[in-house]
């Protein structure tokens, strides 16, 4: 690992001043950043440890829950309020990584973990995300894990977070601090598609800090399910994952939330499929139709065509579980 400086400011103001300097990088749990630094993929000159900031609490706010960006993934997954009101988020968190990593991973770090693929990790290979203009090794290479939605010629990697898929489905808002004060950004607009800027994973500016994520109250707690499909039963990234949440009244779907992981450069919210479910009976026929709508525009590469079959099947399965029909 390249040498770097390390500082540990105790105020938000000093963190903001520090990250405005070139070459600096925030470190929270370190589970993604240290990994990438060991591979030589990220080479900051100075780490700004934000763990002294008071951003670790999960608290109730008007109309929802406020989750500090330093709250640990394990802590949020087991938080009583989250388990009771947003079981989807709890399930998604527990589906991610391992118990050890969830004890390190923070909410802010989880969102900010790089959208990536194996080529991104190998500094000897071309990768537009790591080294813009060098080409995408995966495009013509081994692309089994890669995107089926929203990719560009520049990059076809997927965002690997489970937590973020649930947050996208649950209409979360990101609270961001910068030089000019705070701003709020809908979670679904936080991450980016690759387009012509594959080096950018999200819309957070270099000199901004994620302070918290807020999730509004909803009627989905009784009918939600996070389904993650991977190469082994646990401790592996998703091939495809689905966050499904239904508000069911007397067998009829009043509203629905659906998002997928492992299929795009960002958590992939399926708004058209959600709309297709509204007013329909909560049954297999409705779920199949929604899955069909969800898959419109999907496109596969050499090695990931299986996702075109796996994804709709996963959507149907997740909705079936959410509806309590499994």
């Amino acid at each position, binding site marked *: 690992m*390249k040498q770097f400086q390390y500082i540990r400011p105790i105020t938000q103001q000093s963190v903001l001043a520090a990250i405005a300097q070139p070459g600096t990088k925030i470190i929270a749990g370190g589970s993604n950043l240290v990994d990438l630094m060991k591979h030589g993929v990220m080479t900051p000159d100075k780490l700004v440890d934000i763990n002294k900031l008071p951003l670790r609490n999960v608290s109730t706010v008007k109309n929802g829950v406020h989750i500090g960006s330093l709250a640990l993934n394990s802590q949020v997954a087991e938080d009583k309020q989250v388990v009771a009101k947003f079981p989807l988020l709890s399930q998604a968190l527990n589906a991610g990584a391992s118990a050890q990593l969830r004890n*390190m991973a923070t909410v802010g770090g989880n969102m900010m973990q790089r959208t990536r693929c194996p080529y991104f990790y190998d500094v000897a290979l071309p990768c537009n995300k790591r080294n813009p203009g060098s080409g995408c090794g995966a495009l013509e290479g081994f692309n089994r894990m890669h995107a089926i939605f929203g990719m560009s010629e520049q990059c076809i990697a997927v965002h690997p977070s489970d937590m973020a898929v649930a947050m996208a489905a649950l209409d979360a808002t990101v609270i961001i601090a910068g030089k000019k004060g705070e701003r709020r950004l809908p979670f679904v607009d936080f991450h980016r598609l690759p387009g012509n800027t594959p080096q950018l994973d999200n819309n957070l500016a270099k000199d901004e800090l994620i302070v918290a994520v807020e999730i509004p109250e909803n009627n989905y707690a009784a009918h939600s399910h996070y389904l993650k499909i991977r190469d082994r*039963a646990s401790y592996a990234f998703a091939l495809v994952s689905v966050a499904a949440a239904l508000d069911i009244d007397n067998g009829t779907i009043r509203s629905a939330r659906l998002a997928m992981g492992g299929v795009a450069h960002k958590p992939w919210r399926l708004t058209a499929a959600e709309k297709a479910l509204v007013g329909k009976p909560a049954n297999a026929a409705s779920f199949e139709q929604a899955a069909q709508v969800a898959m419109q525009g999907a496109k596969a590469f050499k090695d990931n065509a299986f996702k075109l079959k796996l994804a709709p099947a996963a959507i149907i399965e997740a909705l079936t579980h959410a509806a309590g029909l499994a």
Partner: protein
Amino acid sequence: MDEQYNEGLPDGQGQSAGNPRRDFLKKSTLLTAVALTPGVAVKAAENHVDEHVAAVFEKLPVDIEINGVKHNVLVEPRVTLLDLLREQLNLTGTKKGCDYGQCGACTVHVDGHRVNSCLTLAVMVDGKKVTTIEGLAKGDELHPMQEAFIKHDGFQCGYCTPGQIMSAVACVREGHAGSEMEIREYMSGNICRCGAYPNIVNAIMEVKAGGQQV
């Protein structure tokens, strides 16, 4: 280096407790140390400072309690907790498997929580308590989880075992050893190349059922 970082340096170093002069000296040394950290060789050359001296400045002081023993060590920011334990403190019970968070061989407890020490920077454990496999037994008396691993043959080559045992203890303490399924899920962060999984699960189930203090 900006004044305001002063207070943010390794715990306690920034607070004005005790001897103010000593405190000032500590602070200024630290500021110099931090300001000098990378490219230090270049700076050393520019300033005609001996590189050997510069190397000393690259390190930061870390107060860390390991298995009940307090240590005050100097580490480069890039040193992981795993390397500090193994290379600097000779606590080689904690193993390096993958070095990238993928196997769990390096599992230790930091302030009671299991983490992967290979992805933990040692400077970030400043002021915390670490327990490694060496810290589980009480003298000659093995920890119940160690006993159970022996009884159930919870290993073959033994390389993953320290990590498995640290993880297993945490698994029981966290309340995630309620069933075989739950144990398998919550132990998934520890890979065993020898495939001792069924015996590991049995060992954990026995400790859990025994209700001993773990």
